[in-house]
């Protein structure tokens, strides 16, 4: 058993729902008790979908357990077919459904429905949402595209000259972080390169579209968490190579263009030259100098976290002080990236562990999921969301991709806005001795709701006690001197001074200790 307060990922059948809900013409019949229908609201409320997810739940109850739950499943599947007339159906069980061992796949086959029925067996007590999405997508691709795979050993026919190269975009699902806009951005980018998109899947695809995945020359894996497994199978079965670069950030987008150009056999020079993001210039403009070395903590799914670390470090000049993921399946990628930035990788799905890490590191910016938004809000640290799980405000009305050149513009804005602007930081320092300038004055753009970290909010729990108990005591004059330091760096100054005092066996912190520590930690 694992004690869990908040969970980053839902159960694997929610991953299957994300695949089914993103698609058209596919229906999911799920052997599950009534409470499991809550999952519909993820799509209708958080993503504001205007249709119910294409999911039929058998909603068996305790009374049914003594009777014939198998019959219940068959009736539900039959009724769902009659009502929704899907092109294909996936069947499976939720965590409770799997315990009663009714074999949804066998039951559905026994109905003899005139459509493909695909069983998705998701081990609910071992795996989680992203794995469930990946497995479901893979099973769909195998079942629907498999029949048109060339015989083993037979090579793909060469593309005739004059025909535009094509690719599939793999990975976007319902409830994905900015998947809706990433599809548009990358499709447009590929069009500029002269590459057509054959199928985008699972989101926007029908079962018939899945069946013709093999017609493309190569695959673009937008979200490895969902599409890596299917892409590997397509490579083996259809000889379709796939992209390894996730085009988030300017340098990754350029790298992606070059990678795609090789796969498509085209010259990317014109597009590389013409396509521009404002990020590089904004980052070089003088107002951005204050961004230099901002300490940033990054947590999310592995692909978004690794991409965010690269953008933060290379394109914004931040310092990555923490990097982690809740996707254990992709822990290796995070470990490799963490080594690059010289930080300890944090591989966990325990929200409290992430919270403790943020508290320990006291970053100046948190880039995370909606969970880290809560953590950051509690500690009064600016935050931007970079990865699922996300909440309703992360499905903005405006076009806001993460990928491609426009994605880089969006990233610059959304990461930099929570921070104080350079000019503002400068003025705050200038006016800090002004009698009208209140110590707790807030950056004007953050509004009253945004907590200024005047003091650390007392956690309800005992986490704080484990972290550090300062042994050194502050002398009154040192405490006064500390107050003259601008409030937004005061917390760091306090911690550094205490650490310095403790490490050097200083019992009482004087003004001298304060400045000794300042010199010691000077960048």
């Amino acid at each position, binding site marked *: *058993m694992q*004690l*869990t307060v*908040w969970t980053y990922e839902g159960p694997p059948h929610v991953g299957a729902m994300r695949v089914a809900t993103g698609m058209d013409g596919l229906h999911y019949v799920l052997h599950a008790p009534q409470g*499991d229908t*809550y999952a519909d609201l993820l799509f*209708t409320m958080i993503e504001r979908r205007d249709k119910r997810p294409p999911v039929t739940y058998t909603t068996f109850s305790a009374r049914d357990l003594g009777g014939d739950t198998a019959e219940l499943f068959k009736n539900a599947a039959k009724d769902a077919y009659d009502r929704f007339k899907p092109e294909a159906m996936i069947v499976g069980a939720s965590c*409770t459904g799997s315990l009663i061992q009714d074999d949804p796949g066998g039951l559905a086959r026994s109905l003899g429905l005139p459509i493909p029925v695909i069983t998705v067996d998701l081990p609910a007590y071992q795996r989680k949402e992203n794995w469930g999405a990946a497995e479901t997508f893979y099973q769909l691709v195998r079942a629907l595209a498999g029949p048109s795979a060339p015989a083993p050993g037979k090579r793909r026919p060469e593309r005739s000259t004059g025909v535009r190269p094509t690719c599939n975009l793999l990975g976007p699902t319902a409830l994905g972080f900015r998947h809706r806009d990433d599809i548009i951005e990358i499709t447009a980018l590929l069009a500029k390169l002269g590459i057509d998109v054959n199928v985008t899947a699972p989101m926007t695809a029908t079962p018939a579209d899945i069946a013709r995945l093999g017609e493309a020359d190569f695959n673009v894996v937008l979200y490895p968490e969902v599409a890596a497994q299917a892409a590997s199978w397509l490579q083996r079965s259809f000889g379709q190579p796939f992209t390894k670069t996730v085009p988030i950030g300017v340098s990754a987008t350029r790298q992606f263009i070059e990678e795609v150009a090789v796969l498509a056999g085209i010259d990317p020079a014109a597009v590389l030259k013409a396509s521009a993001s404002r990020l590089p210039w904004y980052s070089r403009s003088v107002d951005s100098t204050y961004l230099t070395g901002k300490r940033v903590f990054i947590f999310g799914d592995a692909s978004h976290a690794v991409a965010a670390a690269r953008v933060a470090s290379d394109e914004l000049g931040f310092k990555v002080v923490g990097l982690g993921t809740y996707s254990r399946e992709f822990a290796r990628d995070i470990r490799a990236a963490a080594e690059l930035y010289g930080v300890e990788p944090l591989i966990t799905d325990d929200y409290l562990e992430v919270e403790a890490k943020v508290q320990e590191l006291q970053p100046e910016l948190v880039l995370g999921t909606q*969970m880290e938004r809560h953590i950051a809000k509690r500690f009064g640290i600016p935050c931007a969301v970079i990865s699922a799980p996300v909440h309703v405000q992360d499905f903005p009305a405006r076009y806001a991709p993460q990928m491609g050149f426009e994605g880089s513009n969006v990233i610059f804005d959304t990461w930099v806005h929570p921070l104080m602007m350079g000019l503002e930081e400068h003025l705050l320092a200038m006016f800090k001795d002004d009698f009208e300038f209140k110590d707790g004055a807030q950056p004007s753009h953050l509004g009253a709701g945004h907590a200024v970290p005047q003091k650390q909010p007392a956690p309800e729990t005992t986490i704080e006690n484990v972290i550090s108990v300062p042994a050194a005591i502050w002398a009154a004059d040192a405490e006064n001197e500390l107050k003259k330091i601008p409030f937004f760096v005061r917390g760091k100054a306090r911690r550094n001074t205490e650490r310095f005092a403790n490490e050097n066996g200083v019992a009482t912190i004087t003004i001298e200790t304060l400045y000794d520590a300042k010199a010691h930690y000077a960048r």
Partner: protein
Amino acid sequence: MTIRTQACAVSDTARGDTHPTIRQSGQREVFCGLTGIVWLHRKIQDAFFLVVGSRTCAHLIQSAAGVMIFAEPRFATAIMEEKDLAGLTDANAELDRIVTQLIERRPDIRLLFLVGSCPSEVIKLDLSRAALRLSQKFSPSVRILNYSGSGIETTFTQGEDACLASLVPVIPPMGASECSLLIVGSLADVVEDQFTRLFESLGIGPVEFLPPRKSTALPSVGPNTRFLLAQPFLADTARALEERGAQRLPAPFPLGVEGTTAWLAAAAQAWGVDPAVFEKVTQPYRARAQRALASYKRELAGRRIFLFPDSQLEIPLARFLSRELSMELIEVGTPYLHREHLAEELKMLPVGATLSEGQDVDLQLDRCRAARPDLVVCGLGLANPLEAEGITTKWSIELIFTPIQGYDQAADLAELFARPLVRRARLVA
């Protein structure tokens, strides 16, 4: 003070024969009883709810609340893993480990509920024995109880029923010479305080509440306890209280002016309060509430409403909407129809109002679309899809999270139904 016993509450004419009832079984689009934790943990502030379940349970609770609550909540899930399913001995050892870890982490907790879930019920993990075993270990600083919030046993608000029923056996006994009025069912603190003042003005008391705000301040119960249900979904809790000798005062539920008056009157009658006193005490409240309701009545009168089953509050709500706001009832769905506890309500429902018990959501949606109601009360999974079809909706979960009982909330309750209609009328784009 003398207590008069109430005359027989349920007459045969109230058996709902005047209301055609649709009974269908199919997909039920409702929450399970675990959802109750979302409001129960706010109500009993020194209690912790530990769900023994799967990742789905954890995901449900954090999703059902709509937004996550900041800081560390007073609930968590012990997520069962493959090895817990293999052997129950191990599962019990694991549970002990988790509970010990939790209590070390949260020394402020005085009451811990082990909450059963679908998977724990199916593998027959005996949480009552676990609660007993762990109680011995942590007594007296922490009391450990258990109940089931599983979706195979409970629907949405039934989780509160199961929780309160689990509290009844540990409620201290009250001597035969004492008497009290017990209000049963979670109410917002502000509503409790209003009712406390009203009962005091009426000379009714002492008044106690279940659940209490602190687990260390449990009410007591004995043969002279009379109880009023504040919520319509408390079948098991009422039965458990009756087994302890307490007597239920039959009444409609305190929604709207009429419901609140009749609810208070049931207690007043049991306490032998002079009707003139009752009239004098309640009249200003009634007048004020009716004034506040008037503008909403103009908005809502004649509008046709369809209620999907959700919280079991549907029948009292329908009674309020039809009698005090002149709305027309198309269909009143409820997950369960407890005819005894709802007898007073059913008597007041307009003759011919169609009820539905249980659900086949697809068929119900067909009926709803065909009826083209002005307003649909439904869960979060259905609301936006119906809005997209041009049907105005009210999320039913807000009726649980908002203080709606009593005189001073009657207009707030009406406003919840008026707002979606007002909004739709305002929007031009």
